[in-house]
């Protein structure tokens, strides 16, 4: 059914990746530990989902230190923001049609 609608992005078809993008759109910048807490994912799974979004050019990262511990912060790129808007519009269309 999804294929009947345009705008669906395979990068956001996994719910964890869509949740990551939605959280970034809402909060601006989220760290790896912040995602872990919000999404209840293992380090391996979360790392893989973030890498996929990074490879697509949808998120970019910044390394920082918080109390001498290394922290990786993620944020949505303009390209990622546009792709998320398109994907959410397609989802709305799908829900409206259902």
């Amino acid at each position: 059914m999804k294929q009947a609608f345009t705008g669906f992005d395979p990068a956001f078809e996994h719910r964890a990746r869509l949740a990551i993008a939605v959280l970034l759109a809402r909060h601006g910048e989220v760290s790896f530990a912040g995602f872990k807490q919000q999404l209840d994912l293992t380090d391996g799974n979360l790392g893989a989902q973030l890498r996929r979004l990074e490879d697509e050019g949808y998120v970019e990262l910044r390394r920082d230190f918080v109390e001498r511990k290394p922290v990786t912060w993620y944020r949505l790129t303009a390209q990622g923001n546009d792709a998320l808007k398109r994907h959410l519009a397609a989802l709305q269309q799908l829900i409206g049609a259902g």
Partner: protein
Amino acid sequence: MTENDQLKQDLDYIATAVRRRDRPAGVPAIFFLWAAIIAVGFPLVDFGQHLPRIFGAYWLVAGFGGGALSWWLGERDARRSGINDRELGRRYGLHWGIGGLAYLLTMLPLLLERVPPRQGGAGFLFTTGLLYALAGVHLERSLLWAGLLMLAAYALLTAFALPYTWTIAGVVIAVALAWAGLAARRARTQGGRA
């Protein structure tokens, strides 16, 4: 499982993740800091009439120092929690910035000597109550009850023309803030670092 069921489950998962940060619980250390500053600073008007310089110096240091320390504590908390929400930061800044302006306006009748200094405390209780109640609606739910308590105390203080208005106002605000701090701490323990 149908595609629609799968979609519904996915959207529920995303909604739950987003709602976890819907209402931040606040930073308990900031509430305790201001409870201590106000508990000491307000009674100075009632009991330190021979020491007006100490009162002025206290609020100059505690006001600006407390503001800077609150900003630092908030920033540190955001970095520790792993969510750097600039939009939310702007909302906090705007709310407390307007609050600072409201305090200056509350002080205006005292500066212009339209109100005797001894009666000025109730005005600060009203302004603080309103600021915290609105912060409870828009920013952190734990502040709502603290704000309403201050407004109720303002009504009593004004209706019964009680003495030691600054001391009563200071004690009520300090207790309300300590209560908000404890509520914020409990909310964090229950729901992770909200």
